């Protein structure tokens, strides 16, 4: 009972925070609202029996990815006026977008309604980190390796792209 | 070698700080303990008198000219014997930075520094010292100099009677 109420509350928070995030002119505010939304989602994860993921959601999304966003925003000194000179959309601009998203929502809802299985409740269930670990490293060992490679590639790629011209020239001179 | 030096450099400070913890602090607990100030400490200024007991200050404005913060002001006046003296003399100690340049500029050794540094107060006007607050009854650091006896004009003593002077010339005398 408590869990059900909490789910709806958290869902509302997530939706509201996300909605506020996307209409912010100032990216810093957007990031802060998104962090809120991510928190709500993390708690929903916990409700759905994924405590490990809930923690990881906070650590990775809120603790790392959003912080990275903030870092870039501050580094580039993206002031609201600078960033949104042409980004303030009139209602006419919103119209096709609204149409698209509404269609999407309606279609998905219809699809959900068509499948009787979806109306069944999600049972109370708890996945321990131990189960999680066993499955991950046994059944998805390959995926873990691929993902690890991908992460290191991303690190190298980001390092390369983010280098300043000066630094690049210096490195090339050195090589 | 480099690594050893690095390791030593990182951990030696810990030993130093630890050792210091058990030493006696060098702090002087000021209001209770007073520091023995050096003799030539520069703090509050005074106006001294010459060995004859007269004011040394001739209001020559050299101290006010030397003062980097313009805290000295005065007005000269002439006494009946031709002596130049300060009609009023004012030092604004709220401005004074105790640099002592005025004492170096003073040609008569009138303005001198003392070690009295406790000048704090809440009323700013109490730190504006007038001549009567500054004038003391002694010669300060030098108890032999009397400007008017050395200056070569007849104020403290008639012309020609001061040290190193010849009697006034008699212009009507043709004798060598």
């Amino acid at each position, binding site marked *: 009972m408590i869990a059900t109420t909490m789910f709806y509350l958290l869902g509302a928070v997530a939706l509201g925070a996300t909605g506020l995030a996307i209409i912010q002119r100032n990216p810093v505010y957007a990031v802060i609202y998104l962090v809120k939304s991510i928190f709500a989602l993390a708690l929903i994860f916990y409700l759905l029996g994924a405590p490990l993921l809930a923690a990881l959601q906070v650590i990775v999304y809120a603790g790392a990815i959003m912080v990275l966003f903030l870092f870039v925003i501050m580094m580039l000194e993206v002031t609201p006026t600078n960033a949104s000179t042409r980004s303030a959309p009139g209602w006419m601009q919103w119209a096709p977008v609204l149409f698209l998203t509404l269609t999407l929502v309606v279609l998905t809802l219809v699809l959900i309604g068509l499948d009787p299985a979806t109306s069944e409740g999600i049972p109370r269930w708890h996945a321990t980190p131990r189960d999680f670990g066993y499955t991950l490293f046994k059944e998805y060992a390959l995926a873990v390796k691929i993902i690890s490679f991908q992460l290191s590639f991303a690190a190298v790629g980001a390092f390369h792209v983010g280098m300043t011209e000066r630094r690049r020239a210096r490195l090339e001179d050195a090589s | 070698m480099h690594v050893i030096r690095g390791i030593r450099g990182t951990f030696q400070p810990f030993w130093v700080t630890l050792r210091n913890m058990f030493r006696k602090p060098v702090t002087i607990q000021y209001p209770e303990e007073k520091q023995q100030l050096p003799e030539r400490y520069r703090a509050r200024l005074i106006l001294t008198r010459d060995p004859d007991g007269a004011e040394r200050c001739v209001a020559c*404005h050299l101290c006010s000219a030397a003062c980097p913060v313009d805290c000295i002001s005065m007005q000269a006046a002439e006494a009946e014997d031709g002596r130049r003296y300060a*009609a009023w003399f004012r030092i604004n100690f709220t401005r004074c930075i105790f640099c002592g340049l005025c004492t170096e500029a003073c040609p008569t050794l009138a303005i001198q520094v003392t070690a009295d540094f406790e000048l704090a107060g809440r009323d700013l006007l109490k730190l504006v010292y007038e001549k009567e607050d500054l004038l003391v009854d002694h010669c300060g650091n030098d108890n032999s100099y009397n400007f008017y006896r050395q*200056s070569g004009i007849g104020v403290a003593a008639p012309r020609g009677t001061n040290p190193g*002077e010849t009697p006034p*010339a008699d212009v009507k005398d043709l004798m060598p």
Partner: protein
Amino acid sequence: MTTLSADAVRSASKKLTMPTLTIDNQTISVPEGKTILEAAEALGIMVPHFCYHKELGAVGACRMCAVTVHTGPMPGLKMACLIAVEEGMVVTTGDDASATFRERVGEWLMLNHPHDCPVCDEGGECQLQEMTISSGHGIRRYQGGKGTYTNQDLGPFIAQEMNRCIQCYRCARTYKDYCGGRDFGVMGSRNRVFFGRFKEGMLESDFSGNLVDLCPTGVFTDRTFRFKSRAWDLEQADSVCPHCGVGCATVPGGRLRELQRVQSGDNSLVNATFICDRGRFGSGYANHPERPRQARQGDQPISVGAALTTLETQIRAAIKHHGPEAVLLVGSDRASLETNWLLQRTAKHFGCRVPVLNAHHHRHQTAQMAAFDFSDQLASLQDIRTSDLVLVCGVDPLAEAPLLALALRQAVRKGGRVVVYDPRPVELPCDYDQVAIAPLALQELLADSGAEGRHLRDLIGQAKAPIIVAGADLLGPVGFQKVRKWAEKSSNAERPCLMYPVLAGANSFGTALLSLPEQDDLLTRLDSGKVKMLICVETDPLLEAPDGERFAAALTRLEQLVVLDYLPTSLSTHANLFVPTCPPVEDSGTFINNEGRLRRFQQVIKPGQSLAVGEHPSREFSLDTPGSDPQPAALLLQRLIGRELPLAELHRQLVLEQPRLAALTKLKAGEAGSRVTPAVARPQFIDQLPEQPVQTLELVVSPARYGGDLFSRYAPKLEPRKRLPCFYLHPDELQKHGLKDGDNAVVETDFGSFRLSVCSQPGMAAGCVLVESSAAFPQLIPGAGFSYCVISPGGANE
């Protein structure tokens, strides 16, 4: 020839060769006849010197300016002030030989000098201090005693301290040679020479103050400035002396809002580096205890802003009810050019008639003659100093333009001749010929009649650079017309006969130049009865214009009297509305002097009640300065019409209206100053001379040397020089009227009757009575035209 100004003529006449020489590896070309010292100065190389002075010349006595001449006719250690430059000379100033020589000279000059700089008023601007340092001498090695002297009391202006003397003889050269004083000299012998008077007493020369400027050390200092301030503490700026029309450059110095001293400025074309004692010691008006510093409406003090608002309302009301004639603005010849011009602009702004710029109509007409008709042939004082013949007509230089007397002396020293035609017993500090002649007779003489006139014409004809000095007060517009005509007749293309008008006020020329044709007499305007509101800006017609009684009567018919002034004049006490203004030392502006030269003065001190010596300044901090309400009249007028402009913009607009003042926009304080552009001469007309009534004597009113002008009346320092008033008559005339020297007499004049003692004065012209205008007789104003009087014995002496 009329377009060529006198300055241009003089410079064009000099075709100079320019020798080139090398001093300390720098090369310069200077006119022939210049000395090494002057050439070095032009290069910015300072050669230490004492006895050399720009105006006094070199005598080579102090041996301080030693330099080494390497190539030249006489190589070796030479005195830079004595050796004229020659082509190809190579000179060094810093070599060992000359530097050591100068150090020794510095040392011996300092042998007897006391070390009393802290109590010496010269300290801080002392040439001896500077030269001792620059010569390199520091520590006295000689162990013998220092020589001492006993001082003299030289009167209230000059303090002497002979112990400081270094025997450079500059004082004697200044006082005796340049200024022509006779009561000062050198006494004693060997190392006992003494510079002073033969006995104690006030120095007699009217230029005694120059001793202070010229003495390179503190032997002669300004007694009125004694111990008041140190030189470095003074606020100083280049200014112009307001006492007479010569427009000498001065450097007033003030401290603590008090104008404490005036020093001579440097203007080689006007006053060189000298000023008279009246200008130097007559500065008390700025800090006069009675100087009004508070705006008043009736007897009620009000703020300046409120006063201006009231004034504006009153002007508008008066014009609305009584028409444009109802408001009359009056300027003066002691107000600056800007103030006078702003008066015209104010009149235009409110739609009233053109202002009267000078209450003294007669003087104003004469000044207009000078400003418009003389302007193409005006001489400068420098011209007079180099002239070979100066005719002085109707001028007593020491009373009316003291520096003119000095200039005449320099002309005589150079071999020129000075001839004076004047009814007064003129004294000049030089040899001159005087013809004592009554005013009417002088007019006839100028009309070129009689043997004397022919003699005069011959004189001018033979002279190389003749100059006629014409006194405005005595000659009047009629006389000026005659002088102009004479000068025109005796000029030719190669050799113009220049004129030097002697006008009364510091800005007489400027006011005249600004005045519009439709301007008329103040009294005529007042007597018309239409004027309801009179606004006097820095003028007091009661004291500065004749017919004071008529003016006083007109005042009673006025509804409003507004006075803006900085002197405690009597008019300001009658004012319904009074607003305080600033004297020239507290203002920046422009005067035009006698020779049509624009002279800029700068603000020296800020207005405010000065701190009396010995008085303790307030211990409390305050943003308000007591008595700082006065504002420059020019600023007040601009605030009145609601448009405050920076001075430069004001000048731009002024020049647009008065193209003759084109030089104004580039004028800077401290510069020699350019002349106004000459005007095209107007058609001449000769007025008929009035008939002298029988049984009368001609009345000559002359300004007193001290106390004649309004400024020196309010100068307490000048009191010792002021003389008791009396009537001067020729001894024969005295005898004729049965009077003796010192008797009391009653003189009936157009301005009232006066009772005074009479003095016998052999230098007077016959048929004249001379009286000096001063504070004692405010009714008697010089320059009122011809007037006559009857003298009768006035009873026994009191």
